[in-house]
């Protein structure tokens, strides 16, 4: 019979729709048919995946009409060929546990030097696409990281819900790289945003080698 397929993960980018990814098992060269099936908490019957295509190959997409924030989901894959059938483990989740937004957008860096003031780097960004924060449906927490380009250690800062951060006392004359990511109520950080670069004005300080 066919090898055991697998539901590898499920994600919701907006707490409104869900995408699951799956993998076929070994098919021994035989034409094998795969069906993604699911049921919801307390449901009497299971249903077939409503949309195998919108999220790309080997996926199942639950649009708004098929996504409930009130129920647990149980998803599995059935493989069938001439020699028999095989089923995956059941992947279970509720939407709150699988929310992973897209990364924040429009990361911008501005080095501000005001007279009689300590200069600082103003890092600012926009919430991710499709994350409806206005209704309060998703509350995001942000994390900024930066490092000198030639170094390896990142400095990371959690910034709750604000969409900007002032960083003081960066080393003059050095090149820095900055990224930001965010997390909704669940445990999944988004991917890091694209990197932004800036060179801090001024000449690098002589390193005190004593």
């Amino acid at each position: 019979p066919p090898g055991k397929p697998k539901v590898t993960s499920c994600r919701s980018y907006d707490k409104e729709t869900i995408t699951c990814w799956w993998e076929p098992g070994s098919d021994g060269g035989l034409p094998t048919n795969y069906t993604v099936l699911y049921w919801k908490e307390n449901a009497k019957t299971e249903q077939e995946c409503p949309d195998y295509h919108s999220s790309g190959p080997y996926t199942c997409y639950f649009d708004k009409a098929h996504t409930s924030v009130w129920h647990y989901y149980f998803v599995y894959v059935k493989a069938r060929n001439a020699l028999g059938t095989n089923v995956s483990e059941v992947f279970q989740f509720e939407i709150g546990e699988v929310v992973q937004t897209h990364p924040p957008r429009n990361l911008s860096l501005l080095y501000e030097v005001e007279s009689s003031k300590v200069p600082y780097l103003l890092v600012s960004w926009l919430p991710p696409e499709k994350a409806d924060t206005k209704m309060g449906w998703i509350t995001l927490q942000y994390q900024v990281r930066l490092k000198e380009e030639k170094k390896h250690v990142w400095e990371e800062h959690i910034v709750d819900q604000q969409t900007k951060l002032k960083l003081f006392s960066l080393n003059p004359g050095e090149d820095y790289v900055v990224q930001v990511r965010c997390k909704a109520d669940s445990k999944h950080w988004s991917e890091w945003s694209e990197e932004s670069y800036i060179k801090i004005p001024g000449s690098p300080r002589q390193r005190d080698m004593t």
Partner: protein
Amino acid sequence: PICSNGGASCQVSTSALFDRAVKLSHYIHSLSSEMFNEFDEHFTPSRRFLAISGINCHTASLNTPEDKEQARQIQHEDLLNLVLKVLRSWNDPLIHMVSEVQDIREAPDTILWKAVEIEEQTKRLLEGMERIVGRIQPGDLENEIYSPWPGPASVPGDENSRLFAFYNLLHCLRRDSNKIDNYLKLLKCRLIHAGNC
């Protein structure tokens, strides 16, 4: 929740159910308020409708708590069922509202968008309330007793009476969505935070 493979313990926590329900009810009420104010500013600047004939809501027959003391004394099962009844009573009027707003000449697009969004989110909230009531009082989902909507109280062809009927509907939606929002926040404080929000 430790959720064994397909076991009974796999369920969205009651706290998460209430969190999402309150976020929805707050959102629905703020949309309803905005829509009422927009319509009021656009069509009935001096609120003369109200002064003359008063408001008549199809849910008036539902015995809802009208102040804090009454709300404190009502059992949470009764308050839950009341929220369910009010929500069910709005199923037909919201469908009518979405179609009606498309026929009102010069109705701003923002009113139409809000009407559609309210109808969609209210259906979602009703599904959530049925989950919550099913969780807290298994087997007690009274399905039929709610306040049926008698249909639009406007004289066919009379634009003014049609506008007033729509005004009355928006006002009742603002009021009832505020009741639902208020009661849900009370219930959440009572049932999830032991009365200590």
